[in-house]
């Protein structure tokens, strides 16, 4: 079940929980108003922590490495379709909002969005 997805431009290596070397799919779309950060779970190709286990820390790492202003970021977590007969590997997308205190993102809150809504964010 290799993740092949049009919403992944690059594989981003990040520090997971307990510094576990971890990886996710990444697509960044910049505009004048905001930056959309699309983070995809890679399942078997992620050797470490899941993207949801360290959402806030991962968002901070991406902001730091890609010079993104966290206050102008639209952050989307994506579970790609895995073409599995088990329905819990079907596609799901979530926007994530954070509190931003003392320069650090905290307290991720998830809201599921449809594929149409996702497309609007990246069109």
């Amino acid at each position, binding site marked *: 079940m290799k993740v092949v997805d049009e919403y992944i431009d690059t594989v981003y290596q990040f520090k997971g929980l*307990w*510094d*576990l*070397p971890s990886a996710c799919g990444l697509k960044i779309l910049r505009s004048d108003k905001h930056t959309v950060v699309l983070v995809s*779970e890679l*399942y*078997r190709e*992620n*050797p*470490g*922590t*899941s993207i*949801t*286990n360290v959402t806030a820390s991962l968002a901070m790492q991406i902001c730091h490495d890609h010079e993104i202003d966290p206050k102008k970021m639209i952050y989307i*977590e994506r*579970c790609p379709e895995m073409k599995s007969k*088990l*329905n*819990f*590997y079907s596609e*799901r997308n*979530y926007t994530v909002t954070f509190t931003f205190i003392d320069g650090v993102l905290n307290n991720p809150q*998830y809201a*599921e969005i449809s594929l149409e809504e996702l497309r609007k964010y990246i069109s």
Partner: protein
Amino acid sequence: MTEIKFKLIYPKWKKLEGQTTFNLPPHGPVVMAASLPEYVHVSFTDENVEDIDFDEPCDFVGISMMLSTQVKRGWAIAQEFRKRGKKVIFGGISTMLHAEETMLYADSVFLGESESRMEEVFSDFRNNSLKKLYNYLSIQPPIELVGPARRDILNRELYNHKGVQMVDLFHASRGCKFSCYPCAVSYLGGRSFRPRPINKVIEELETIENNRLFIVDNSLAQNTEWEMELFKSMIPLKKKWISHTIEDDPKVLELAAKAGAWYVYQAVFDTSDYIKERIKRYHDFGIGVEGTILLGLDNQSEDDIKRLIDFLLEIDLDLAEFTVLTPFPHTKVYDDMIRQNRIFDHDWNHYNADTVVYKPAQMSPERLYELYRYAWDTFYKDETQEQKMFRLFANVVMREMSDGTFKPRNRNLVNMSFGKEVVRNSN
């Protein structure tokens, strides 16, 4: 070098109501004990079968935890020892799953596999420079270093029911290449399958006096060549064993049967012919099947669950174990539930696979629990769990008698069950 007296504890957990209770000798502590430096004298207590003596003389305390339902008890035990001025280190699977919380109750937490790491820990302890965290989660030791477990630290008589010795636990590999929805093994042991060298496996098996084993590997079906070689090498030992899934290929099953496969656990997640045929193939080779059935998946309606139970009765499973979907940390199900804000119970004592701690997709938590009870009651309506177990047990006894490995029960322990006297009904 001065000896260090190390007290190793395995905390108790509440057993599930309505199910036959067995206490198996734990595996994690005996594997960890094998990696201790020579100057460490270990004294082990499994709190499931004996009480802890908090005043037993010792220098250093280790708490080994496997289940989420052990962690709160483990933390309480640590507090008792720390009150007495003892330093406490935690390790094991559920320590890794609950590491951040566990650190609040520990002098030290060890994450990862213990082989070749314990000299550092004990040397730091001796020099009064114990670290708060030993993080080896991402650096696994070479698999060749895994040696025979220290089963000598167990009090064997405590793992005995009316004179019948329980199976010994054993592992032939670590890590898992699969990322199954409810499972955390790939987080704990890495996402690549790491089989032990066959000669090392056989060397350890030869040290185990018990003829009956439970091979606890997550799945042996990850490398066909190694799996077949393993079974071939096991044939002369004449052990009888239980395991998780093995490869569903006639040539593998034939070897497994010859190597002593007694029964296997098989996840049953739908009512397909694929499952039906798989169970039949195991049976064709004389291998029993205990179905493991997870209830509460998002795609299951009430009718689906009822249909699944009818199906289990049709396919002639030897045993069935029903569990409620439980979002253990570091699993995909946990991530999904967190994102969907569906977990309403965060008490780890309730993460026993018998309690609904989340909002199911197609029914209320209460209804799911009712269906879970219905599943147990319906499957075991005509023949109880104990009766079905006895049939499997009789099967292994027959096989042992025919190959000359049968050992009669220990007559001195016929009135004991897991260290306690059996109360017999006088009627």
